[in-house]
């Protein structure tokens, strides 16, 4: 069996961390796209669409991400769709993060005072004009901080992709632990790398929140 130096461990972890980053980006982009759609449905006021999004959110916030991963991974295959660990992880994380982002963004839109809606309606603006010119510009500003904050959850969520065999930071960690048997060192390094990825996002989120609150 090959011998691993500390540098080998770190090098392999760093290589694997790339995939954590890529998967996070894909999941965030996917989650944001689907989440935007769902948010629009949620605030449309159409009973059927609102009910659907409620159910969607309840479903994905009410079940473990791990189960969602398993179901996507094995479930889609049973339906005859060939799914790689990549696709399964990206899809499950997209579903998961879109549910939370929808919840966050709906909250931001609802945080815009009713008076803004009423004043706009009195001026004769249509629903989409109100959304486009009045609500979204304000909601967007409110949404930045919690959205950046949630991206930390996405990065951490990618760690579960290791369980369906996707080789990212955590999976590389377990593989290296098995090859070196230095769990304290290996998992310590893994944790440190995650921290280095997530902490800047956390700090940015907090700074943004403070800055935007002052501006208001």
């Amino acid at each position, binding site marked *: 069996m090959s011998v691993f130096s500390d540098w080998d461990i770190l090098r392999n972890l760093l290589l694997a961390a790339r995939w954590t980053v890529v998967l996070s980006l894909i999941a965030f982009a996917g989650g944001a796209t689907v989440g935007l759609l769902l948010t629009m449905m949620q605030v449309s006021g159409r009973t059927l669409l609102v009910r659907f999004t409620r159910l969607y959110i309840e479903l994905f916030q009410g079940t473990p991400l791990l189960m969602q991963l398993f179901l996507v991974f094995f479930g889609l295959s049973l339906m005859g769709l060939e799914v*790689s660990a*990549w*696709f399964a992880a990206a899809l499950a994380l997209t579903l998961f993060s879109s549910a939370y982002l929808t919840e966050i963004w709906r909250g931001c839109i609802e945080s815009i005072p009713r008076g803004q809606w009423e004043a706009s309606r009195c001026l004769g603006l249509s629903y989409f004009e109100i959304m486009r010119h009045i609500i979204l510009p304000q909601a967007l500003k409110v949404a930045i901080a919690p959205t950046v904050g949630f991206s930390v959850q996405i990065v951490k969520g990618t760690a579960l992709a290791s369980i369906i065999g996707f080789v990212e930071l955590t999976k590389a960690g377990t593989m290296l632990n098995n*090859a070196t048997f230095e769990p304290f060192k290996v998992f310590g390094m893994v944790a440190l790398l995650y921290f280095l990825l997530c902490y800047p996002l956390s700090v940015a989120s907090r700074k943004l929140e403070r800055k935007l609150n002052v501006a208001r």
Partner: protein
Amino acid sequence: MMSVFKSCLKFVGLIGLCITALSANANQLDEITKRGMLVVAVPQDFPPFGSVGSDLQPVGYDVDTAAYLAESLGVKLELVPVTSANRIPYLQTRKVDLVISSMGKNPERERVIDFSRAYAPFFLGVFGSSDAAVASAADLAGKTVGVTRGSVEDLELSKLAPEDAVIRRFEDNSTTISAYLSGQVELIATGNLVAAKIAEKGNSRGLKSKFIIKNSPCYVGTHKGDTELLTKVNELIVAGLTSGKLDELSMKWFNAELPAELKL
């Protein structure tokens, strides 16, 4: 990392693939030849059958066997690292063509997948440090044994072990081995060749064989009903056994020739 990169490319074109889906009735052997690629599930946490090198690529007896089969079929090889628990779902859902993952045969498995003839020897046993006083299954009473969930040793041990033995089931072999090495379990049930590899590690607390659970040679698994593929795999295994190719691999990974009964 190349395989991950390839999957990445595959991911991009996946929507297209999704639509064409899988024709379950097609001849899998033709399918493999057509796409010029053999997709094989191999272990990555089960030395010497499959573990990772310092570049995190799978290496081991199973990996070399897979390479031998792909080479003989004249196609490229794609390795998919799997765990004991998920390798059969991988095969059932056709994420892979073959499972070459030190897999033993039992009736439950035979209901859902097909098996080739044996390609490697394997004895399952219970192993522990030299001072653990265990000589038979009955002695496991009150002891904690780690085992990989869903493996043959799990199924067998679950039958043999007395009521008050604590069986700790882990998701994959690396977790099971880690659990033993970090002292979370007193004993582990695994294969003799694997135990020998673990024993090479410094802090293995002198891993010794306690008793044999079962002689359970390894088989290649195929999707149920892929008769042509199975026949071809069997042919190639026999050819490998007679030509000495598999012996060569055995010398490389097990430091021993394959036992005679495997060649019968």
